[in-house]
């Protein structure tokens, strides 16, 4: 009985492996909008082959990939959910060819090339939050690292959140760079520490803040109570202390 069970399992696994192999390179994951990686590259390449996807193959499941997938699902009589699940992937594999090595090498070289259907690849893209470029994130990471590299992680997210709260406020400039470089606003800018190379933690903190995390409760100012010289800053309503900084309205 036990042996039989084992044999059955092996058998099923083999069949699964074989079909998986036969089916192509897609992994077993259900691919949804926002995903990055090899499966997305394959998805885009196959959708391009079938003529549904006209943008460049960049490895990020964005809106144009999403519409292409939905249109494909609709024409092939699949449930239109914008998710690349098992059934969709199978249909796609039947309807298209995918030369993985070729596509990847072109992406790797960052070279524009025509794959199928006349569209290009670009070097692999990355998700960035709406309204912020990779360079904005880098600049903010510089400011966060210069201002708060010795602080707990929450304190680093907090500094990034204060920058963003200022951008949103009428009393401050309307861009991240404007807020950061306002004379006298940040000590790290005044003493040049902003030009230190930020670490990954600072970047993560910035990304969290841009994605909505605000551990400060909408603070516009913060100061170190041990070194603050301005009497005015003490008059602001204080919300919370994180690490060495007090955050206030």
């Amino acid at each position, binding site marked *: 009985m036990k042996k039989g069970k084992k044999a059955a399992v092996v058998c099923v696994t083999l069949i699964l492996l074989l079909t998986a192999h036969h089916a192509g390179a897609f992994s077993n994951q259900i691919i949804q909008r*926002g995903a990055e990686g090899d499966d997305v590259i394959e998805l885009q390449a196959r959708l391009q082959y079938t003529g549904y996807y006209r943008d460049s193959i960049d490895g990020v499941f964005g809106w144009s990939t999403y519409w292409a997938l939905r249109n494909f699902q609709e024409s092939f009589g699949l449930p239109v959910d914008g998710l690349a699940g098992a059934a969709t992937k199978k249909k796609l594999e039947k309807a298209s060819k995918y030369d993985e090595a070729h596509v990847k090498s072109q992406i790797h070289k960052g070279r524009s090339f025509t794959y199928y259907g006349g569209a290009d690849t670009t070097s692999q893209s990355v998700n960035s939050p709406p309204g912020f470029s990779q360079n904005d994130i880098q600049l903010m990471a510089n400011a966060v690292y210069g201002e708060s590299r010795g602080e707990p992680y929450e304190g680093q997210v907090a500094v990034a959140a204060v920058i963003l709260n200022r951008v949103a406020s009428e009393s*401050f400039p309307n861009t991240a760079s404007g807020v950061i470089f306002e004379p006298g606003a940040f000590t790290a800018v005044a003493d040049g520490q902003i030009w230190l190379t930020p670490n990954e933690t600072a970047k993560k903190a910035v990304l969290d803040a841009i994605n909505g995390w605000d551990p400060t409760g909408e603070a516009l100012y913060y100061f170190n109570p041990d070194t603050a010289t301005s009497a005015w800053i003490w008059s602001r309503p204080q919300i919370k202390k994180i690490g060495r900084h007090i955050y206030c309205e």
Partner: protein
Amino acid sequence: MRSFTIAGLTLLLAVTAIWGFSQYRQKEAMYIEAENGYQQAFHELVYQIDVIHDRTGEALAMNSKGNLTPALTDVWRLTSEAHNAISRLPLGFMPFSKTEEFLGSSGDFTYKTAVRDLDNEPLTDKEYNQLETLYSQAADLQKELRSVQMSVLDKNLRWTDIAHATAKGDEPADNTVIDGFNTIENKASEFSEADVFQAGQVEQSVSDDGLKRLKGNKVTKAEAASIAKDYFNIDAEVTTVEKNLKGAAIPFYNVAVIGKNGEEASMDVTEKGGYPLTFNVNKTSGKGKISLHDASKKAATFLEKHGFDNMVMTNSAQYDHTAVFTFTTKQDDILIYPESVTIKTALDNGVVSGLEAQNYWKNRRERDIESPTLTSDEAKKELHPKLTVMEVQKAVVTNDVGEDVLCYEFLAENGTASYRIFINAKDGKEERIEKLAEAEAGY
């Protein structure tokens, strides 16, 4: 031998003197360069306030609407430039936010009146009064700024000196500039107390009322710590539990922990009811093992388990090995966008590593939503004819005057870009339009 030494030392001294002098010259040059930047910003500011004053004065006397719109547009542009000039001045040592607020709200007012079709909808009496107030307030600012400008020019005051002196905590040698700006700031606070532009002002953040309505028993420090640990999902040692400071919207505890593997995590828990406001675990996620889709399911289960009912995923994105999702309340078939949370999941083990729910609690309430006046097909007629609609659903969004309105949400594309458009379900007004971001190419 001795004369050699003397000659050598003299030479050394001369070289040092020359080097020192050139250093001094270079420093002076940098100093003047910085000073010139400040001077430029300051004199521009004075000029712009001058023109704002003149242009509002002209607008008041204008009879033809054809001239009024350009005049108001000009004021709007100048308020933004003046704001910009202020942000380039070294005023970090003193509060100047009321003046900036004044510029911001006058900008909003002139923008709103300038973009309106004044033939169909002329200035109301109230707006005319607002314009008059703007005119007299600009006059006040102009007068003060001019007197500061006069003394700056007269006494040859340097912004760099003022900034350095105050940064060190000293009183600058000449207080004219600081006094002048303080007077301006006081004047501007009087303006904002008068609330002339309140009607047109955009609320920057939602009110805290929702937070104050939260119900439940008061939790103790120890309870707050155990609530936080339950959310963190890591084996952790509580390092600190701190109360909020006095200026916070509502009382809360800030719980900080360090996990067994060195992960830092922190969370704000409300004192009343022990609700989660925000939490974040700083964890380095290893290589992604689970898919974005599976991660979204884990996030959904997590929210359900912690009492966030009827929420559906409205956005998802992968950043390296971390997934970030937005979940939104769905009431019947209507998405309530103001009631959204952001949630983070590690893609190596699928554990939820962060939640931001402050806006959710602020906006959370029982909603009695009227049924729409328009059908979705009628609303669709309001869209640009070149757009292809891909998806449509009903949704509540906050519009630009801070009201929650029922809309039809259209996801559409025009061949090159995708858009999200909200059409008011009552009157067909285009409440909001967003161009949906595509991924950014790596460089």
